[in-house]
């Protein structure tokens, strides 16, 4: 009996010793990423990876406004501080072109199914550049629009709208309809909304015209919708087109809370949940779990996530890529595949994250009533991706995209605030872009 115990103890000891030997020296990798929900949710899945791969992942949370600067500095210095970096859509070309990140085409050669599972439009915008694959997106903030469906469905409002505009009130299909609806629902305290007198001013639309890049995300929707782009194929800003959409946007500001000039997406969500606005402009669909809370906070409210008018809107995703100066690129690539892979993306979706994989987005489970509060926007997100299939923006094909993206809000917001005219803003944007690129911006095929 004593021998049996001793043998058993020896076997257990050897087994645990062997296990310790396999992971006594875990491979260290560091992931620089955005502080907030995206990372908090992902942190749970890092553990899985560490155990399976004998790795130690250090997650560095950086405020979104500083992430780009910090990453560029580390990449230029080739410090190896970050193995895996997180890139905004407009930053991919710059990082790839300047050799800051490693191509992963070879790595994904036997994982083509995973790459093909990334929504095609998202793949084109965030993953591919000059024929190579540069990582996997793990989160998408692609835009659609949020509307107060209860207002659009109200019989009294429908009747009044038809009498005023001559067509039926419903989800806006064009930007002209969007403007009409915004104007129609803008009301003062004491006026009636759905037959009830308002206790505070109500506005037709919430806008993100603050000093943040989100203003250009909003404007991308009508600009792309009219068949234009931020950069022509010759690498120049189409001044007349920008002037047109910016002019319409400035007009729309009349129907938005005046806080529009200081807020970004969280401010608009607060306006929605506070019962101040009827709808958004082109807006990040990943905010659905936030937007749907309006139903709890505003009596009688019913929210819908829909495609933006013209079926074009900002396509964005956080790309995970591997730094060229990584000391452990293979482990870093495995990590990218792990976080962007189907298992983790499913678990991420369970928590309310906006997945990038078609197989997850189209899974009926995530569009079921039980999951409405977390992933109720998935069906719409799928529609957006389908509608935009084949579309591409030159902003994401120029290695100067990140710099342009980081400075274009200045003239746009100046016009929104009335500091300069719409024409001046469009011309200034063109001049700024030319200055950044040192002439017409190069556009990759």
């Amino acid at each position, binding site marked *: 009996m004593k021998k049996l115990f001793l043998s058993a103890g020896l076997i257990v000891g050897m087994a645990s010793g062997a296990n310790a030997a396999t992971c006594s020296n875990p491979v260290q990798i560091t992931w620089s990423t955005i502080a907030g929900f995206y990372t908090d949710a992902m942190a749970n899945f890092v553990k899985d990876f560490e155990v399976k791969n004998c790795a130690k992942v250090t997650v560095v949370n950086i405020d979104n406004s500083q992430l*780009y600067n910090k990453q*560029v*500095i580390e990449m230029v210095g080739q410090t190896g501080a970050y193995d895996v970096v997180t890139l905004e859509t407009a930053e991919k070309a710059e990082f790839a072109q300047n050799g800051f990140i490693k191509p992963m085409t070879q790595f994904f050669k036997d994982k083509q199914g995973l790459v093909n599972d990334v929504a095609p439009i998202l793949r084109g915008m965030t993953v591919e550049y000059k024929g190579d694959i540069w990582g996997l997106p793990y989160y998408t903030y692609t835009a659609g629009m949020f509307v107060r469906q209860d207002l659009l469905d109200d019989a009294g409002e429908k009747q009044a709208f038809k009498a005023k505009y001559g067509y039926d009130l419903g989800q806006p299909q064009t930007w002209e309809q969007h403007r009409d609806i915004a104007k129609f629902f803008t009301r003062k305290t004491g006026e009636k909304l759905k037959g009830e007198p308002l206790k505070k001013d109500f506005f037709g639309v919430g806008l993100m015209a*603050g000093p943040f890049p989100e203003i250009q995300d909003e404007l991308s929707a009508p600009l792309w919708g009219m068949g234009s782009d931020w950069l022509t194929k010759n690498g120049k800003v189409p001044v007349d087109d920008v002037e047109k959409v910016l002019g319409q946007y400035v007009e729309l500001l009349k129907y938005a809370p005046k*806080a529009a*000039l200081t807020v970004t997406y969280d401010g608009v969500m607060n306006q929605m949940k506070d019962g101040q606005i009827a709808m958004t402009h082109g807006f990040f669909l990943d905010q659905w779990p936030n937007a749907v809370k309006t139903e709890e906070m505003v009596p009688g409210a019913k929210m819908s996530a829909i495609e933006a008018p013209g079926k074009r809107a900002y396509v964005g995703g956080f790309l995970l890529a591997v730094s060229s100066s990584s000391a452990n690129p293979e482990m870093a690539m495995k990590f990218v595949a792990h976080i962007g892979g189907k298992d983790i993306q499913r678990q991420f979706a369970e928590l309310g994250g906006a997945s990038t994989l078609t197989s997850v987005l189209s899974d009926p489970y995530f569009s079921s009533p039980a999951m409405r509060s977390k992933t109720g926007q998935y069906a719409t997100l799928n529609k957006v991706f389908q509608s935009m299939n084949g579309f591409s923006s030159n902003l994401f094909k120029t290695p100067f995209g990140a*710099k342009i993206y980081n400075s274009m809000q200045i003239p746009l*917001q*100046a016009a929104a605030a009335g500091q300069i005219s719409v024409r001046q803003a469009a011309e200034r944007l063109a001049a700024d872009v030319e200055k950044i690129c040192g002439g017409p911006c190069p556009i990759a095929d």
Partner: protein
Amino acid sequence: MQSQSNSALMRTSSAGMSDRWFSIALIAPAMAVTLIFALLPLAYALDVSFRFADLSRGKLGDYLGLDNYRTVFADADFWSASWVTMKFTIVAVGLQMSLGVGIAFLLHGAQFAKGITRSLLILPLATSAAVTGLFWRYLYDTQFGVLNFVLGAIGLPEPNWLGDYTIALWSVALFDVWQWTPFVALIALAGLQALPKEPFEAAELDGASQWRILTKLTFPLLKPVLFLVLVLRTIDCVRLYDAVAVLTRGGPGTSTETMTFYLYRTGLKLFRMDYASTMAVFFLYVMLVAAVFALTPLLKQFTDRAKES
């Protein structure tokens, strides 16, 4: 002979080091820190200002002579940011000085709660602008902010503090005044308390009016302290960054974009380190010249006093 040997003893330390070398040894660590953290980066910035340096493209480029200086001086945004900085500095420092000195006089004459008021005055200074700026951003919020709530409750207009380009700069200035007026007040109060009593007693015996005492005695005696505070506050306001970064990010448009914020944007958003370094060098030059002009009379005054005493 005895006194000579005493003085020789004074000039050498116990280890045989002369006073001169001992004093050099004492300041050497501070000089080393200054050299490493101030002078070397400055020399590097000066070097970069004459070269092509787009950081996002990697290494430093070729020397371009004075091209970067020409580009920066021809840049309308640079001059616009300089103008914003100047407006801000004049208004903020003006208000801080007048309010601070006023508060100091009130406190100097106060009979009770002097200690607690002094302690409370330190509070705005005790936290960084990045933190208090966040509080102020919420105070200024047009929808949920306390300021507009109060103004609305008493029937006054509710301004868009940070979203209206005509007033956003003054909203930032108001925040800066709130934070730094106590500094001026505390220094001025210390200056007031350190003034000699005799001239005031003599003036009172001579029947001088309060106004005459104030203009002919108090302010002239307080001038060196006030001048020093003025110089410190001016330098601080000219390099304003944190309040702008937290409250407005230079917006709406460019209405609150100060020199330092523009420099940050050029250097760390566009990664044009060449232009950013050029601006920084020019900025430093202007500040140095201004500081030398401003401080020379003050230093002369201090030196004269030291000689007299």
